[in-house]
């Protein structure tokens, strides 16, 4: 799967995009967040306030209980501030 990070999440994680094989037991967006947070400090810091983070799967806003599949594009970002 392809993971994308934007704004201060990108800065904290230190990368804007990465490709990973879907880990065992990661079936939802929330599972993926748990897996990432366990990976290292940058991820832990990026997902610190998990309740404000927005997620998109294949460019559609989703909740953290949304399923993720092997070829999904999953994006995480802070609340948007465009306009």
């Amino acid at each position, binding site marked *: 799967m392809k993971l994308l990070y934007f*704004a201060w999440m*990108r800065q904290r994680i230190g990368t804007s995009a990465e490709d990973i094989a879907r880990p065992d037991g990661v079936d939802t967006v929330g599972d993926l967040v748990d897996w990432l947070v366990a990976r290292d400090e940058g991820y832990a810091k990026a997902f610190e306030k998990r309740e404000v983070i927005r997620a*998109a799967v294949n*460019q559609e806003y989703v909740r953290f209980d949304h399923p993720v599949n092997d070829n999904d594009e999953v994006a995480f*970002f802070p609340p*948007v501030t*465009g*306009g």
Partner: protein
Amino acid sequence: MIRVQEEDFDVGAEIAALTGGDRSIGAVATFVGLVREMAPVEGETRAIESMTLEHYPGMTEKKLAEIEDEANRRWPLAASLIIHRYGTLSPGERIVFVACASAHRHAAFEACQFLMDWLKTEAPFWKLEATDTGGAWVDARESDDHAVARWTDKPDAAE
């Protein structure tokens, strides 16, 4: 029509192109958003040296097109246009442009406000403000969440 671009745009030319030829149009409501030179950064008002807009290429265009479709579903618009810039902008520069044309003014005004409220809360853009003490990401404003809540039948809220 939607456009996501780095370059500036010409408001007068955009309005003329939008309405040109269609004489059923009696009303054009527009909005231009500009970079302000002072802004609240971490609780203090600071001078802004520049603003950098990051976005999510692909999803941005998708969301803008959806938002525009929704406006056209809700109001009888003859034409509509959303332009949103990305990249690094200076104070005074244009960030965003929305124009809605209709036979009558209420549809034009309401659709224009609707589009701005949705852009503020649904379009995947993030603003980084550079001040003399460094860069700070603009916080989402609670007032924008309230503004968008007016349009009660949220068409594309998170599933």
